[in-house]
């Protein structure tokens, strides 16, 4: 780790100000950032912890019936408190281990946008809205590739608003070492159609599998996607599996997610 200045603001406004400093960076649960700092792969001059900001924590339902989760809410809190959206609660409960879930936050996960992270699939499949200190961003506009998002420097995710689908399920096939998603598929059925988001598989990060969405919107059953094959183009190939394997898993997991809905 390199030396840095540490700030722990109590309000969002203070945090925004603190993040205005030269080479300042937000610290959520630290489950990604702290290991990165320890390996000296990041060198912020100021680290602004969002942990003391009560206004970005917690879970509620808004007038439109959306489940609203504060950006600083931990995975453990979502696993416990998102009963209105069981598939989302289950996803949160399957992230990492208890230590990770008790610290890591939804805002941190989405800001980081690891191509193997779980949350991005739920956000994209749900058509959720990411709320920051300055604006609201639709999920379809938010994810812009591996570790890349629509966030501006210093922008803080304050809340994520999830429309609650009629049915939904997340299937995670773990990478044996990290136990992140080797492939994860989130299927969400809404009145006006089905959305399928795939994480872990693509070099471009989380994406929507539109062929499956079409097939499932017409016929929401595992059989509808049985013969469907995801394209292996641009999929990740590494020591844990080739692109063809990941493409195959996308199909298998989509079918399983539908069957489990």
């Amino acid at each position, binding site marked *: *780790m*390199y*030396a840095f200045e540490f700030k722990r603001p109590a309000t969002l406004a203070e945090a925004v100000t603190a993040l205005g400093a030269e080479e300042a960076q937000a610290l959520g649960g630290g489950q990604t950032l702290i290991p990165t700092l320890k*390996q*000296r792969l990041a060198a912020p001059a100021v680290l602004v912890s969002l942990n003391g900001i009560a206004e970005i924590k917690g879970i509620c339902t808004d007038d439109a019936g959306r489940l609203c989760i504060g950006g600083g809410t931990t995975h453990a809190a979502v696993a416990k408190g998102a009963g209105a959206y069981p598939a989302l609660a289950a996803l949160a409960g399957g992230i990492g281990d208890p230590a990770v879930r008790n610290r890591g936050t939804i805002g941190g996960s989405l800001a980081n946008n690891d191509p193997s992270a779980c949350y991005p699939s739920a956000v994209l499949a749900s058509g959720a809205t990411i709320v920051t200190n300055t604006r609201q961003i639709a999920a379809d506009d938010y994810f812009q590739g591996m570790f890349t998002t629509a966030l501006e420097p210093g922008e803080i995710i304050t809340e994520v608003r999830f429309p609650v689908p009629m049915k939904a399920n997340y299937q995670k*096939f773990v990478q*044996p*070492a*990290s136990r992140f998603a*080797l492939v994860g598929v989130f299927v969400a059925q809404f009145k006006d159609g089905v959305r399928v988001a795939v994480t872990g598989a693509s070099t471009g990060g989380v994406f929507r599998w539109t062929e499956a969405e079409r097939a499932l919107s017409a016929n929401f059953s595992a059989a509808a996607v049985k013969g469907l094959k995801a394209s292996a183009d641009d999929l990740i190939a*590494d*020591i*844990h*599996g*080739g692109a063809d*394997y990941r493409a*195959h*898993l996308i199909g*298998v997991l989509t079918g399983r997610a539908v069957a489990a809905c």
Partner: protein
Amino acid sequence: MPKDGIGASTKRREDIRFLTGNGHYTDDINLRGQTYAVFVRSQVAHGKLNKVDTSTAAGMPGVLRVFTGEDFAAVGGVPCGWQVTDKHGKVMLEPKHPVLAQGKVRYVGDAIAVVVAETEAQARDAAEAVVVDIDELPAVIDMKAAVAGGPLVHDEIGSNLCYDWGFVEENKAATDAAFETAAHVTTLELVNNRLVPNAMEPRVAVGDYERSTGQHTLYTTSQNPHVIRLLMGAFVLGIPEQKLRVVAPDVGGGFGSKIFHYVEEAFVTFAAKVVNRPVKWTAQRSESFITDAHGRDHVTKIQLAMDKDGHFLALRTDTYANMGAYLSTFAPSVPTWLHGTLMAGNYKTPLIYVNVKAVFTNTVPVDAYRGAGRPEATYQLERVIDKAARELGIDPIELRRRNFVQPNEFPYQTPVAVVYDTGNYQATMDKLIEIADLAGFDKRRAESAKHGKLRGLGVNCYIEACGIAPSHLVGQLGARAGLYESATVRVNATGGIVVMTGSHSHGQGHETAFPQVIADMIGIPADSVEIVHGDTANTPMGMGTYGSRSLAVGGSAMVKATNKIIAKAKKIAAHLLEASDADIELKDGKFSVAGTDKSVDWGSVCLAAYVPHNYPLESLEPGLEETAFYDPSNFTYPAGAYACEVEVDPDTGKVKICSFAAADDFGNIVNPMIVDGQVHGGIGQGIGQALLESAVYDENGQLLSGSYMDYAMPRADDVPFYTVDHSCQTPCTHNPLGVKGCGEAGAIGSPPAVVNAVVDALQRAGHTSVTHIDMPLSPSRVWAAMQA
């Protein structure tokens, strides 16, 4: 008999301190005035080292000194402890291994420079400011490419082939001839995957130097402090033993990786004198991945010749064994004497020929890792037998039974030099069939099928060799060390005992098991015996712990010393009881005159030894302390039979281990609970190798699985509850305890069981072209096999 003697499942006394955070590990040692060392390591696998510019670093805050290869030009290289002679009678190529790189870097992680500073952070900052000018050279990673004219890892030795070993060379022609006429030959090519040991405690070394006395002390995470003292003192730094103390306190797991003498140990010892302050180095986990000696990494072709009934006629193997970039301490012995000698397995194969080519590559050095050579031997043998059984249409258990060495054939001379003293392979197989409920397999398979899962059963046997010995033999085989063990048994005036052993405990439970033996011999409670180990200043010269040798060799030394104690104590008792010492019997901590009710208790005899008022001073020295060295006459040969049941998910290739059963013959057992634990841990590591673990290099020599994000360690939910049994006991015939060793068996015997089970599952499901899948059997590999 004391209730906590031999055979009692006494809870491990050391666990009290380990589980309450009171262990005292090397990193817990912080000396006054301590400084911190941070290594600058090569980020390329192969390169010409032009210049190491330390000028900026040397001027940075807190920096005491920056060391480079030049500082070590005058001292020795890190020595290799075993010299193998090849099939042409030529000794192996033995390149120099400097403490810090000189002229060239040879693997990612090779040490180039070291900063010593007041704080760790300052040392790390300055290490980043060391400017290393390297001309990168093409790296050689693949072993076959390395010997087929690839770039030279060591220019000065002119070849990447360390040795080309043939064993037994005299058998070669007859073996080849047997293949010509055999009714059936089964051939299998396989890879024994490279593993990173991943001891829970990373390596640490603290060097200390006392200028007023010239005394060096090295605190280090070692399995054998005396060996480190000898190797480092005599060969690297030229420090005589009386001026060098090596302490290995609590050590958090070794699995072989902490046997070896590493450059960091030599560095801190050397640097402490130069800067005249204690110097500490603690490995970061990512550093452990690229500096702890790796394990396995063999590429093998094995062939088994049989008659029409499946009787084994001959076996031959061709193995490429990776040495990595330098010869680690015992690396040359692993694919040779610890591997070739075990190729007979539990079977009567009259002709065996083993060829091993040891190869230098631009990778981390490879050396002994839990099992060391024996897992590689067992894996290929038990895999080829499984394949042969399928080809011949013979039940795999029946094929093994048909070829077992029979119980009445011991001692059994194998065609690969070693003589098995005792064993009963039919008995462990029978026991396995019972404890694994193999009769119920078909039912369980049908149940799995109902859930869409492919169930398979894998069975195999293993034999291994522990307590490698005797010294004069291993000397002939190239060992540059003796392989005895030592113990000093010190009886105190009030009857308590301290045993100073040359063995070292780093998870094996010596502090509990060793006292049980003495408790049994004397008839006193085990808690009146303490074990001291790990410090060259207060233990006799011993060879440490590896190769499952502690109880069989170190325990035997302790028994020998205790027998001397008992003999002397009997003389004292005879004096006190006014009888002849030939008539004195020791039972339950009491000396009595045979056939009388006259007796004196243990404590009184001990007191008399140290307060010799009423004592035969003219014929007997006072005191009660004895030392013994024990040099075994043979290896011990633990053996057993293992069974694994798996479920394969046909859609994803994911393997779930449903059950694992182990029937081991370890001879006599001192503490059954500790033995269970050792077997559990070993099987866990074996399952790790079979399903999860793999050190993977890319063609440029970068370790792709260099962290836990990519290197999969087995976790609790990867392994089942094990069924282990060690009731089949054929005691070792040549050590006083009749014990064999249990530390590595699980890791040796389990990988083939897992792979056999997965292949079985696929075969039964109709994937008849799948005869082998290389470890680790990751979901993607199993899935790919099913697509073929």
